[in-house]
């Protein structure tokens, strides 16, 4: 238990160090742009593929179940897919995917830099290593995850439309009637809150695990795995808390 509190303390100190005044703002912003590119563009394909098929599967499964209850009109599926994607599927599945893809990448990158003394080299130059190496990644996480989630929502809804129309469950008009019916802006706000929190969780936990690695290749691998596991656990807990508090 004491070890847990120590780790949380170390984590908070490191995050605080990351937000010290930059030595040169232009260098930090350049690095932040690079991280945004890696985080966002680098993950776009996987998010797009997964979100499209998650939307498609949701639509097909709801259509399958609603067919047996003839009292429910099929255009409701559009509404169900939209709500499901916005409130739960797009933010949570995207975040879990990104924890695996980007989180392990961040952790192993920083871990390798630590082991090969590259972080020490920055320190010797007088660079605030936590600031220069971590804060751009935090910025990238907080900015890019919401953008990717918005894209995932659109593609998920399109996936649901494609699957349903191909399977003759509903027409295009029926589906989009459901998608646009009773649209609540608050759902989008909840989605954005979740996405920002998930972005912070993924980048901060992964940076912490990578930055504090000691040892060699085995420890880098362990840190990378822990970054994914701890991020995923934190994501599902925060997901529940946000749903519990905001819905």
């Amino acid at each position, binding site marked *: 238990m004491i070890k847990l509190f120590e780790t949380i303390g170390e984590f908070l100190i490191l995050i605080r160090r990351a937000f010290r005044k930059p030595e*040169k703002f232009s260098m930090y912003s350049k690095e932040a742009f690079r991280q945004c590119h890696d985080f966002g563009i680098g993950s776009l394909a996987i998010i797009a593929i997964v979100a499209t098929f998650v939307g498609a599967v949701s639509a097909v499964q709801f259509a399958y179940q609603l067919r047996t209850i003839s009292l429910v009109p099929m255009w409701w599926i559009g509404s169900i897919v939209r709500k499901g994607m916005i409130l739960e599927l797009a933010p949570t599945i995207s975040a879990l995917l990104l924890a695996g893809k980007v989180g392990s990448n961040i952790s192993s990158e920083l871990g390798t830099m630590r082991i090969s003394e590259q972080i020490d080299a920055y320190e*010797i130059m*007088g660079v605030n290593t936590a600031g220069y190496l971590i804060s751009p990644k935090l910025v990238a996480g907080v900015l890019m995850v919401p953008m990717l989630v918005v894209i995932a929502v659109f593609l998920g809804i399109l996936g649901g439309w494609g699957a349903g129309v191909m399977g003759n469950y509903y027409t295009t008009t029926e589906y989009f009637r459901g998608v646009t019916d009773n649209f609540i802006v608050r759902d989008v706000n909840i989605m954005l809150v979740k996405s920002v929190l998930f972005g912070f969780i993924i980048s901060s936990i992964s940076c912490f695990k990578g930055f504090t690695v000691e040892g060699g290749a085995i420890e880098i691998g362990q840190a990378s795995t822990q970054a994914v596991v701890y991020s995923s656990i934190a994501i599902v807990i925060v997901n529940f808390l946000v749903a519990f508090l905001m819905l």
Partner: protein
Amino acid sequence: MIEIKDIKKNFGDQEVLKGISAVFEDGKCNLIIGKSGSGKTVTLKCMVGLFEPDSGSIIYDGRNTMDMDFKERKAIRREIGMLFQGTALFDSMSVEENIRFPLDMFTSKTMEEKQQRVNFCLKRVNMDGTNKKYPGELSGGMKKRVGIARAIVMNPRYLFCDEPNSGLDPKTSIVIDHLIKEITEEFNITTIVNTHDMNSVMGIGDNVLFLHDGYKYWEGTNKEIMQITEGELFDFIFASDFLKDLRAHAKY
């Protein structure tokens, strides 16, 4: 000049440095030698601020770093250049970007001025023309030279080299040693080299500090070290039976 006074450092229950004092002079190559685990790297890392000593003083030209706050220490660090054992070149940057990084971060020079400085440093280490290469494309010796170029780009007053010859063949090691010596004299900087290579000791060791088991065991010049006839230092110098035999034959 750098002076260290009674530096002690523990890691848990293990006493690694047990009170080391020494003076490292300007314009000279000061070598710290000793067996693996004798405390060389820890001494060096305490001096540059990567480790915090448990007690003692580290004085850079009259400025005691132990009395300094974070900002003052950062300012001192900008006067330090360091060549790491594994070179620690940034993988994601080209040779040119590696060397230019401190200039980009800490100066307001124009791109042209920075480029001139980078080219000067690369030329100084005989690596001109490699600007666009990445560390992964360089040999061990080339990486060391680029590491030296990066270490001197900010005109440091103090140069630290941790095992500059590790992983290099004897001929390339001599080249790197001579480069360090030339740069030290040319720019009149205080250079501290961590090594266990006796060729380096004989080639560039103006002042030699021998550490054994966390203590300063011996201090002198590379001329004096050859007068040693017994003890831990003798065992260190003549580590192999071959060298001992060679020495015995040389006597007669």
